[in-house]
């Protein structure tokens, strides 16, 4: 059971990794507190599910449409709320995500709590083909391995793209805005436009994560996308360190290893108690880290200390 179990953990870590890259782009690099990432993810995932099931679209075309719709959602949130102060903006984003979730839960088009089923046929065909290839090297028994590979491939490619982008003059403007948006505006940078771009890209990343969530859970229901998803992402950020994309990878691996690994211990506790204990352990770890290494695993201590 163990390998399958860890492959599943790896799938989750990779999905959350893609999701959290967007949070890093927002919170870590431009200083936007986006707490609505789960809402953008829900838009992406449901767009995929509904376009395939109700409209007969190809899964891959639906993925593109899902990304586009999430970006539109990001622009909508940005244009309506970016002029708010940063903490107020955070509240607006979480409100947006909850609106999305409640609509999906109660609207007819989204199937309510029954959810959406039967959109992943094309993926299964591809997955079976991949499994046949994997069987050649003796890995054909791990049914989730193709998804694991796809998720991590996507994660690493997106990671590389974002790292490259961050090293450009564009990325420098983001950091300038994070440090002092008035000073950056006084140098001729359109702060609003950059925040909007950052938000739109984060929404696109959330949609990609939502696509993989859809493939992973095989049927979509609203409670998958509750705000906890976003807060897990932030926990990974705190562990890995702000303003470091590598930190997202490390934070993700550590977070999921801690959270899921603790399932494996045999204790005298009931299942419910042990499930809660896992979160206590993760919480304790976060506290310990903030005491010993406040910048996170890969965060930059020197950069943190020079700030006023």
């Amino acid at each position, binding site marked *: 059971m163990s390998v399958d179990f860890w492959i599943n953990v790896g799938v989750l870590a990779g999905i959350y990794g893609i999701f959290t890259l967007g949070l890093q782009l927002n919170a870590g690099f431009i200083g936007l507190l986006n707490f609505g990432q789960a809402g953008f993810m829900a838009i992406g995932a449901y767009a995929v599910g509904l376009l395939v099931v109700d409209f007969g679209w190809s899964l891959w075309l639906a993925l593109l449409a899902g990304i586009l719709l999430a970006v539109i959602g990001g622009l909508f949130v940005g244009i309506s709320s970016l002029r708010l102060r940063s903490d107020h903006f955070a509240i607006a984003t979480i409100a947006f995500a909850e609106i999305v979730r409640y609509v999906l839960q109660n609207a007819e088009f989204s199937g309510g709590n029954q959810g959406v089923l039967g959109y992943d046929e094309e993926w299964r065909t591809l997955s079976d083909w991949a499994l046949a290839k994997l069987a050649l090297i003796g890995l054909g028994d791990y049914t989730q391995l193709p998804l694991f590979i796809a998720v991590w491939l996507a994660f690493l490619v997106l990671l590389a793209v974002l790292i490259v*982008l961050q090293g*450009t*003059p*564009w990325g*420098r*403007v983001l*950091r*300038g805005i*994070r*440090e*002092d948006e*008035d*000073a*950056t*505006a*006084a*140098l*001729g*940078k*359109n*702060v609003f436009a950059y925040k909007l*771009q950052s938000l739109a890209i984060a929404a696109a990343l959330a949609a990609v994560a939502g696509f993989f969530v859809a493939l992973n859970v095989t049927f979509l229901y609203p409670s998958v996308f509750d705000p906890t998803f976003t807060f897990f992402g932030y926990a990974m950020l705190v562990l890995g360190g702000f303003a470091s994309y590598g930190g997202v990878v490390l934070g993700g691996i550590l977070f999921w290893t801690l959270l899921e690994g603790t399932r494996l211990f045999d204790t005298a506790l009931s299942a419910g108690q042990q499930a809660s204990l896992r979160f206590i352990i993760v919480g304790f770890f976060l506290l310990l880290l903030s005491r010993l290494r406040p910048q996170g695993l890969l965060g930059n201590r*020197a*950069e*943190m*200390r*020079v*700030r*006023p």
Partner: protein
Amino acid sequence: MTAPAGPILEVRGAVKAFDGLLAVAGASFDVERGSITALIGPNGAGKTTMFDLLSGFGRPDAGTIRLAGRDIAGMAPYRIANLGLVRTFQLTRVLAGMSVMDNMLLAARNQPGEHLAALILSPGRSRAAEAAARESAIGLLATFGLAAKAGDYAGALSGGQRKLLEIARALMTGPSIVLLDEPMAGVNPTLGRDILDHIAALRSARGTTFLFVEHDMDVVMTRADKVIVMAQGRVIATGTPAGIRADPAVVEAYLGTPHAVAP
């Protein structure tokens, strides 16, 4: 933009109130192209508010502000900066968590790499602009005695060095007019003189206009071509340093009585 002749900055009847208190109460003045102009006045005269209005950080309740003939009142700060008016802040605002060099490079104008589309379509142009910007940043940092600090975090600089960086960064944008809010405050006098020399040299070389708020009257009297005096939100006098010194309205605004005149 428009006619090269005429004042670079024309302010007419600018008004700005905060909760009914008139910080700027109908101020009018011109700043001549290529001049070094001082804006002085007692505390609370409205100098910093005026700077905010000029740079887009405040929208005037009434009045017009023209930059090279173009109305900029209420325009967004970034647009005003891109039209060539760049300011520094009274309390320095360096980008603490970025290197001194990155502070400078951020200020470079016409960097196509700051736009995603251009970055992807023509990365070569971005790199070329970056190399050119780095070169002029190195030159400016040398002028301001910050060359050795290029790799340090801006947040690790001393107060005076931050002031220098902020001025150097403003100049990095290649501005036509620079607004300096108390550039000498917290800077040691020798360094301060160097800054002033550099400002004078830049004005001669590039025709850059400088408008600065300053409390050190020695600096104002020896370095400015023209002085604008504000009191209680209004411009009460404009003229040459010598003329201002002799103006009874100015003396009264500062000292409250017409008797004690500084030698």
